[in-house]
């Protein structure tokens, strides 16, 4: 019988090397993004056309060089990382709240209510959200807030499905039957008995949906529909760097590498947590 991850058991889980290393890397990057810009004498928006496309150097704290408009790449990269991480976390949080609430209700209610709610999820799933997001972005003139909502709206479906699946199986377990026998009201059952036992799965999936959120945001920036100038994100920086690939490769490579490292860390973290939470895969 699979041991379900619990709030208590999670505290005990330190995870393997993958979890620790990934968490470490992400912490370092986050701190660098928050603190880094203060180490430099530049800001993220000042243009200096006399210093375009300078390679990285230690003079003048131009650690990452400059971009095609003479703006300091180090500060822009750090500031872009902040935005990328912010978007990812907020969007994932949105999808978490939506997904868990929807999935737990559908799963516990069961029967026709569940079938109807999942029918809606199926329909939304089929809609090519990317296309709709693009449409909305175009139509609403690239609203900053809209990005968070749109990205969150794409990811909650997966979370809802997984939470519903888990809820359905949890619902059949004896401890839920025991709670019903005592007379615990259904709302309390869902929140005191079922949701805490979902946390493990939810945490794992959040760390795996964050990369998806980042990729969506990067894609939007690539299309010119994401974060607007002079603010920037890693995706926008990558987009900008593509046109200078031949002459000034660092303009592309630095943000692209950082982006890849962040994505990989989240993926490794998610994998590591999933292994820790599902020990069957390791023990045998």
């Amino acid at each position: 019988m699979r041991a379900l991850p619990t709030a208590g058991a999670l505290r005990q889980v330190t995870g393997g090397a993958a979890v620790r290393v990934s968490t470490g890397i992400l912490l370092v990057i986050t701190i660098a993004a928050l603190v880094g810009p203060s180490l430099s004498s530049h800001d993220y928006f000042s243009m200096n056309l006399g210093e375009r496309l300078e390679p990285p150097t230690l003079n003048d704290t131009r650690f990452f060089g400059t971009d095609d408009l003479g703006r300091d790449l180090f500060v822009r990269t750090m500031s872009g990382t902040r935005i990328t991480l912010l978007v990812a976390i907020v969007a994932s949080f949105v999808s978490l709240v939506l997904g868990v609430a929807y999935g737990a209700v559908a799963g516990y209610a069961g029967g026709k209510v569940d079938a109807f709610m999942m029918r809606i999820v199926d329909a939304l799933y089929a809609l090519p959200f990317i296309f709709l997001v693009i449409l909305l972005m175009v139509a609403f003139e690239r609203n900053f807030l809209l990005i968070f909502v749109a990205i969150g709206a794409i990811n909650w479906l997966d979370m809802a499905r997984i939470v519903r699946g888990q809820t359905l199986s949890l619902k059949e377990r004896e401890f839920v039957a025991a709670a019903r026998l005592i007379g615990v009201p259904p709302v309390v059952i869902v929140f005191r008995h079922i949701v805490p036992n979902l946390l493990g799965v939810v945490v794992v999936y959040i760390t795996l949906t964050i990369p998806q959120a980042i990729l969506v945001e990067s894609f939007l920036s690539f299309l010119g529909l994401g974060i607007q100038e002079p603010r920037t994100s890693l995706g926008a920086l990558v987009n900008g760097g593509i046109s200078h690939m031949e002459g000034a490769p660092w303009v592309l490579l630095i943000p692209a590498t950082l982006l890849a490292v962040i994505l990989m860390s989240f993926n490794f973290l998610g994998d590591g947590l999933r292994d820790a939470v599902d020990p069957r895969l390791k023990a045998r």
Partner: protein
Amino acid sequence: MLRFALLRILSAIPTLFLVVVLAFLMVHAAPGGPFDDERVLPPENARNLEAAYHLDESLPRQFARYASGLVRGDLGPSYHYRDHSVSELIGAAFPLSLQLGLLSMAVALVVGVSAGVIAALRRNTISDRLITGIAMTGISVPVFVVAPLLVLVFAVGLRWLPASWSGDASGWRFLLPVVALSLPQIAYITRLTRASMIETLSSDFVRTATAQGLSLFSIVRFHALKPALLPVVSYLGPAIAAVFTGAVVVEIVFGVPGLGQLFVRSALNRDYTLVLGVVVFYAALVIVLNLAVDLLYGFLDPRIRNP
């Protein structure tokens, strides 16, 4: 099995309907009309134009009109390309996207499954870590980074392959777009196959097969392979959807005149019937393909096929 199949088919229909409704509402919720970009028209002409396209009617009537057209296969006229209907435009663009998508999917399956099985069988050895590492990179690097890089290396740098679509008429021009599009899927499928194979190999019935003195090859070939691949079959549904989404990027980078390009242009042109048409077409495609995958899965799992 028949019951299962009928149930799935029947349940796809309301889903499709719901999709059309949602897409219709979203498209009409977007502010701005399809003719905003044109020169400013005298009000009378504007009204006539609107009447001709039935934009003056109430929303439910417009929807009914649209839905009845749909059933007949008529997706309406394009606002921007006045001489063409949406169906025509989609019909012109779709085959290319289809070829691209199918090729990529096929490549991804063949490469991904093989890599995943090998990695699983050589678990924790160097080959495994290498494969897993590459796969991890594959899902961590966005397609719009990989695609230009590929162009840079293979087209501009080495000059082995054509850099853009229209510059070449040979089949070779498919290569880079297909590679770029299939890479993330290869990565996912490798990881999925590996995990699934590892799990299958640790199941009780594989232990029984080992106890029966079967060689590893026999076990994989006769007992483990099919069950291990079932999750991959399930994944095919979402995978196809992802491929078509990723195709948007690839088409833009390589200049392929496919459905994705069509959509972005229509969004920027505020060509709402075309946008709606592409969305509905795409959604229908996804639903049908998902249905096919579900049926395939039901056929492969004996517990569903012969209850």
